């Protein structure tokens, strides 16, 4: 039994952590929050140069050819520092989708650029408010072009390519769209977490190629989102752990009634409960990492498990980190709201908490009762 990362993977974690300490301090996150840029381009290029973006991409497509466990390690570190970069859109979703279902030509064209940090992707599935479901897709694909609108799309404003879920005849297909093509309109959307950009994309006869077979779009999208759910789960885990640490440190520093506030049980127990959430999430994410790296049959259940648990943990730790800080936690100057914003934005990415709760039980029911033990 070895439900842990290897020494080499832990070394990679240390290396990425050091890099992010120098290149992604809170000031870098704030620069995106308060400035005009949609992401930190210098940081993103640095991650590419470090080999992080191509960690799980095979060498024949310009990647580093490590694996998904390495990508999990990286994701946790990016989550800890709230890195304002389009890694989830481009790597966990874009590259994963191409590796899972893309044609040789599609892979040759985009994977090397993804690895090098030269192409940013976006995952254009959603259309408007309400739970994501097949019946809501109106955007159409005629075999050569797509027309319609998608929103909200994370990183839609800065992306070079989009993976679009479209109606083809009566069925759903997944399409690859080069966003430099004609008929693309982008509109920035304001959001609860401006450190990650949201946009509306409108297509009007924009050239597109299908990914996989016609009618296979929802199936492929589901598989890709399962894989991404584990990686985003690791980002949430990193964020939860860091929010807990920030809260703990403040509880040690801050004095009230003549004592460190961490000596009050009301505060101590709140922090203990945050530790419990983060620990459950870590263990569930490790289960997800194992399933992802070994493409186990349990992957769909492990993905939903990791995702639900990590969402719980990050939301819990981020909101209670503010509570531990009291009024200071609600100031713009303290970083607590950055974690609160990201935790609530990530809770909705690729399907909300209730969507994943539902998927988990649907999948467990389809398996057998043994799965519950």
């Amino acid at each position, binding site marked *: *039994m*070895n*439900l*842990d*990362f290897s020494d080499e993977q832990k070394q990679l974690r240390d290396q990425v952590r050091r890099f992010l300490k120098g290149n992604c301090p809170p000031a870098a996150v704030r620069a995106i929050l308060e400035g005009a840029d949609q992401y930190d381009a210098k940081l993103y290029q640095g991650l590419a140069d470090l080999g992080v973006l191509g960690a799980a991409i095979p060498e024949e497509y310009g990647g580093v050819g490590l694996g998904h*466990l390495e990508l999990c390690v990286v994701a946790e570190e990016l989550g800890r520092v709230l890195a304002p970069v389009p890694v989830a859109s481009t790597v966990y979703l874009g590259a994963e989708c191409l590796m899972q279902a893309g044609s040789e030509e599609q892979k040759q064209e985009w994977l090397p650029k993804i690895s090098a940090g030269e192409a940013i992707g976006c995952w254009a599935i959603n259309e408007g408010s309400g739970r994501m479901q097949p019946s809501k897709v109106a955007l159409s694909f005629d075999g050569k072009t797509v027309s319609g609108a998608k929103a909200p799309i994370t990183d839609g404003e800065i992306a070079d390519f989009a993976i679009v879920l479209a109606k083809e005849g009566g069925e759903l297909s997944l399409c690859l769209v080069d966003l430099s093509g004609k008929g693309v309109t982008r509109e920035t959307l304001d959001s609860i977490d401006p450190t990650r950009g949201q946009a509306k994309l409108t297509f009007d006869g924009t050239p597109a190629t299908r990914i996989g077979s016609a009618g296979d779009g929802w199936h492929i999208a589901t598989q890709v989102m399962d894989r991404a759910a584990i990686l985003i789960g690791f980002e949430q885990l990193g964020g939860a752990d860091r929010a807990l640490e920030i809260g*703990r440190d403040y*509880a*040690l520093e801050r004095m009230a009634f003549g*004592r*460190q506030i*961490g*000596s009050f*049980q009301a*505060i*101590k*127990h709140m*922090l*203990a*409960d945050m*530790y*419990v959430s983060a*620990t*459950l*999430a*870590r*263990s*569930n994410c*490790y*289960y997800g*990492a*194992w399933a992802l*790296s*070994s493409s186990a049959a349990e992957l769909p259940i492990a993905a*939903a*498990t990791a995702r*639900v*648990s990590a969402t*719980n943990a990050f939301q819990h730790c981020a909101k209670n980190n503010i509570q531990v800080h009291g009024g200071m936690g609600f100031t713009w100057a303290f970083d607590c709201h950055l974690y609160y914003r990201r935790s609530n934005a990530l809770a909705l990415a690729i399907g909300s908490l*209730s969507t*994943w*709760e*539902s998927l*988990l*039980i*649907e999948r*467990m*029911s389809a398996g057998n*009762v043994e799965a*519950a*033990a």
Partner: protein
Amino acid sequence: MDFNDTPQEAEFRKEVRSWLDANAPKHLEAELKRASFGSNGLESEDPIKASKAWQKKKAEAGWACLHWPEEYGGGARSAMERVIWSQEEGPYSVLSGLFTIGHGMCGPTVMEWANEEWKERLLPPLASGEEVWCQLFSEPASGSDLAGLRTKAVKADDGSGDWIINGQKIWTSGAQNSDWGLLITRTDPDVPKHKGLTMFFLRMDSPGVKVVPIKQANGASGFNEVYFDDVRIPDDQRLGDVGNGWKVSLTTLMNERLSIGSGMSTGFPELFKFCMDMEIDGEAATANSGVRSKLAQFAVKQSGLKYTGMRAISALSKGETPGPENSIGKLVAGATMQELAMYALDLQGEAGVVWDEDSPQNGRFQAMLMRSPATRIEGGSDEILRNIIGERVLGLPGDIRVDKDVPFKEIPTSGKAKA
């Protein structure tokens, strides 16, 4: 990452399996699998006899107390081998419940603090299950605040050196079946509370010891009160120095938390099965979105505990010390079990109030509902566990203790409600 054994682990597992296959009391398997909450579920045989017989058989073959040295009747096995044994023993491990406190807590304390003669006398029959031990710590007025205990030990005035014990203990599991007890007493009320304690062990059939079962809130009687009325204990049965009882008790309590890989149940597999078998509005309950949300939240707690245990086992397998993450086990399991039981009754509608043999799964969820408050208190209450996580894992400051430097006899013993 993988869930595979190392070659040595696989070899050991094979050895365990083949011994169990040839020796386990298979005629009891079905009954033991139905076990729940404090009872080992046996009806066809006397549960105490069955437990002792299985323990003796294990001891004779070297499978008892795997973590103890061989000279005291143990198996001298590694922590990882212990984990593998407990995974393989499966339903038969229910038969070890009678010995949990003796093997897990009293034994290690005796091993650390008793003299060689006593160790040779006490430990082998404890390992083999011939003698059962209980732990006499909690009192009516000292639960979480264990060091506030009031059971008195004073030197006999006849010059024998013996100690005379008077007082009362409570929540003593298995006292009625025990041959020996590990007893913490107050020997000096004039010094601060932690400094005036002394530890002893005694025969439970000593004159003046009276065991009275407690009728619990759920109607069952798993615990006891134990009264001491001028009970005489030879000084030779003292563990550690006079006044050093707190330090000795820490050995016992540290061992209480060392149960690795014995993942506690939350009741989720049973709830899931119940939902698979029931319908709401003409469709499976598991298709209902409200049910799904609730079940998913229970599911991730269950699996989080399971994989937390596996992370600890992974550390053991590599020869490392597991991290503090296992400290969340009882805190999560107890609270989850209680919420889960309430939800299972909710799904039964108004009929959830009925608790009889026709209730779903023989009334398992009703029993869980009524037993779970104790799980959140016994062996460290939820609040004590949060203090431990806060202070030892997160490094937060301890509470300010107003009774720290006060002689024990001057500590107030009752508050007063405002009129």
